């Protein structure tokens, strides 16, 4: 790069503005012949010859103020090869060039611009979209303040092993920045602030570099363990004309196949599972694609082994006779072989922890139980953020993608299964089916307690919602942890897209935008998207309601409005008890009341159909019915339900 002074401009973003003077300066400063050629006025290109189009110039030496072919157009060409359907963003000047290229040059299609009111919403929408769609949504963020806003949501996706395709604008060349805000919004190393919780990043220095890194980023993000990636798009690259001499091309994307478990390890695991008397399969983020659930079902049925679905994804049909998620501890305690598939926390699965003044833990497995882990998480670990959980002492660890390893494991299990073992398996299956029926009955009975209570019980809320969606092609696009997992106990989930798991990093504010992103993916398939929406979560960035209305995203949000950050109520209460300081103050700083939030009014103010607040359970069904009418007409709708804590 040439020396930058006020009288010798760098061959940077606004060099083309004074073509004659800059050409002379470049030659004087010893710039290369190629650079000089780039500075010379090119011939006006034919319309549509995009890849080699340069700036416009006037032979009379009049200042050139326009170009037909900015670098952002080429970036859009790159995005189109990656099949990016949407790009979510809150507008920011550091990517104004790319923004304009998307909406004009790209025709605002593939990717289509989704307007968000907060970068945390942009990222979480992309997070939810991926889990419903199976491919990334692009996200544009301001290189500094936007990425800072986005950081928590990126961390959620990192923990949840979800690929995000993030592009951050920045202005690298300090001599070309506008005075004032562009300086405060520029950064030397934009990716540094999130590098601890993304998989890869790059700062391309040319458009060809951008193309290659853009394709590489996609490939890296989509290879298990999947994670966010970040490209920094320099403002000059976006805005300056594409050089007439640039021979730009977009490299071909070849997706990497996911890593399978070592064949000897697979065979050993199969031997243990077939020989086991009480094997248990535990799955967390195992069903990475829609094919994953069928594979876990096939393995479980081959062994007639119970499955504990920890809910990182929908791994197993909820009413299957082998789904025993409701008695996880009992099964783990009695197991002789435990197969963990993409577990976030194997240690926490097989150990009990007690949160008292003296914190204690102990294994809950019986002596000699064999633990087998298959997780791609073993292939990529970073040090700073501690989502790796406590070290689990397993007997066999496959650093591999569980879903990709299952076909080989299933084959090995079937080959080893003799007639004698088949009879044992069948007998085990009959007992498990009986136990499963008992679990279903128990759930129904437990749901009947507080059935008519006000605030409305989370069981009643879940049952009322289920009654009105069960005959549709539905998808629950919200987590269920805060409503005591009632949907998993009362509803029949049997299609992979019917549940998408949780945030990953437990960063509050994920729920509402992730639901909107998933609903956006579901829209083109005509699926009915429903969310049980926590109040505290929505208040982080409620502007996503406007995004849903603006983009006509059909989504039914039924509020779980317990008027608190209730997890924190319980934490502060625990501290008050531990410190022997009474029971009256835990609500300070943890509850969301006085005044109560009018969520229906909030939603209406942003163009969302709304009902409520509903405090009498008898009013719930009519309110849901009315809201569903709006959703079926293609609009978002919200029902505010004042609910029990959990």
């Amino acid at each position, binding site marked *: 790069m040439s020396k930058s002074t006020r009288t010798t401009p760098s061959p940077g973003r606004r060099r083309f503005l004074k073509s004659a003077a800059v050409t002379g300066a470049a030659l004087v400063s010893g710039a290369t012949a190629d650079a000089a050629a780039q500075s010379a006025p090119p011939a006006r290109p034919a319309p549509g010859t995009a890849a080699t189009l340069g700036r416009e110039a006037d032979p009379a030496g009049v200042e050139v103020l326009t170009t037909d072919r900015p670098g952002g157009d080429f970036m859009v060409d790159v995005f189109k090869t990656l099949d990016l359907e949407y790009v979510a963003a809150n507008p920011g000047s550091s990517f104004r060039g790319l923004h304009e290229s998307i909406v004009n040059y790209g025709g605002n299609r593939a990717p289509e611009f989704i307007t968000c009111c907060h970068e945390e919403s942009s990222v979480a929408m992309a997070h939810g979209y991926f889990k419903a769609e199976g491919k990334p949504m692009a996200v544009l963020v301001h290189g500094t303040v936007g990425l800072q806003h986005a950081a928590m949501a990126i961390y959620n996706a990192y923990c949840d092993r979800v690929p995000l395709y993030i592009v951050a604008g920045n202005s690298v060349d300090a001599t070309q920045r506008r005075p004032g805000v562009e300086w405060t919004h520029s950064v030397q190393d934009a990716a540094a602030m999130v590098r601890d919780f993304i998989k890869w990043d790059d700062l391309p220095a040319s458009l060809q570099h951008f193309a290659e890194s853009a394709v590489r980023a996609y490939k890296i993000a989509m290879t298990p363990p999947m994670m966010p990636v970040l490209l920094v798009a320099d403002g000059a690259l976006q805005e300056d004309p594409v050089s007439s001499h640039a021979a730009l091309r977009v490299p071909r994307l070849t997706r990497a196949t996911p890593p399978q478990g070592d064949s000897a390890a697979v065979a050993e695991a199969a031997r243990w599972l077939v020989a086991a008397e009480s094997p248990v399969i535990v799955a967390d983020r195992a069903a990475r694609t829609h094919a994953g659930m069928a594979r876990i079902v096939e393995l479980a049925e081959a062994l007639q082994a119970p499955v504990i679905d920890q809910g990182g994804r929908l791994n197993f049909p909820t009413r299957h006779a082998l789904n025993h998620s409701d008695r996880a501890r009992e099964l783990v305690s009695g197991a002789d072989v435990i197969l963990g598939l993409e577990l976030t926390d194997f240690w926490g699965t097989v150990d009990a922890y007690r*949160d008292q003044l003296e914190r204690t833990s102990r294994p809950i497995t019986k002596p000699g139980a064999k633990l087998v882990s298959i997780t791609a998480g073993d292939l990529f670990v970073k040090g700073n953020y501690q989502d790796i959980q406590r070290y689990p002492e397993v007997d066999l660890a496959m650093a591999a993608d569980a879903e990709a390893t299952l076909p080989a494991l299933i084959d090995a299990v079937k080959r080893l299964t003799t007639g004698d073992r088949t009879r044992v398996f069948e007998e085990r299956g009959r007992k498990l089916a009986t136990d499963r029926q008992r679990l279903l009955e128990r759930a*129904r009975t437990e749901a*009947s307690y507080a059935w008519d209570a006000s605030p409305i019980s989370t069981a009643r809320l879940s049952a009322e919602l289920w009654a009105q969606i069960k005959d549709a092609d539905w998808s629950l696009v919200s987590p269920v942890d805060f409503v005591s997992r009632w949907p998993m106990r009362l509803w029949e989930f049997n299609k992979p897209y019917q549940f998408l798991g949780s945030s990953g990093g437990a960063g509050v504010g994920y729920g509402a935008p992730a639901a909107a992103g998933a609903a956006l993916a579901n829209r083109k398939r005509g699926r009915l998207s429903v969310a049980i929406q926590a109040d505290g979560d929505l208040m982080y960035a409620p502007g996503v309601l406007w995004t849903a209305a603006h983009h006509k995203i059909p989504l039914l949000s039924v509020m779980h409005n317990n008027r608190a950050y209730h997890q924190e*109520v319980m934490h502060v*209460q625990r501290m008050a008890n531990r410190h*022997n300081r009474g*029971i009256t103050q835990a*609500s300070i700083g943890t509850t969301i009341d006085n005044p109560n939030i009018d969520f229906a009014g909030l939603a209406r103010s942003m163009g969302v159909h709304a009902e409520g607040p509903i405090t009498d359970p008898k009013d719930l069904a009519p309110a849901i019915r009315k809201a569903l009418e709006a959703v079926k007409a293609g609009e978002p709708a919200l029902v505010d339900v004042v609910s029990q804590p959990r």
Partner: protein
Amino acid sequence: MTKTTVTLGVAILAIAATAFGQAAAPAGNAQSGRKVFASNGCYECHGYEAQGATPTGPRLAPRPLAFAAFSKYVRQPTGQMPPYTAKSLPDATLADIYAFLQSLPAPKAADSIPLLK
């Protein structure tokens, strides 16, 4: 801002049910007990109607544990439940809470609720 979701686990009140017999409960005021239960502490994990919640705390009523077992567990819990000492929760208030739990009626049978059939 990031918050941590922590599953508090299930207090295992039921285990103590038979160990401490059926000592007579002290007289308490159910109305006062409801007020305390539903405003501070108890409701947070067990729900306003003591119906329980799988990840936080078990159902406490109807038919609560015998008072001796109930009281012992509240004061010196062996599971995840935080301890409620007599300083935090005086004996008289605990008796009121117990009276409230005793006053809660049995729910309708699940089979009689159309949505649960």
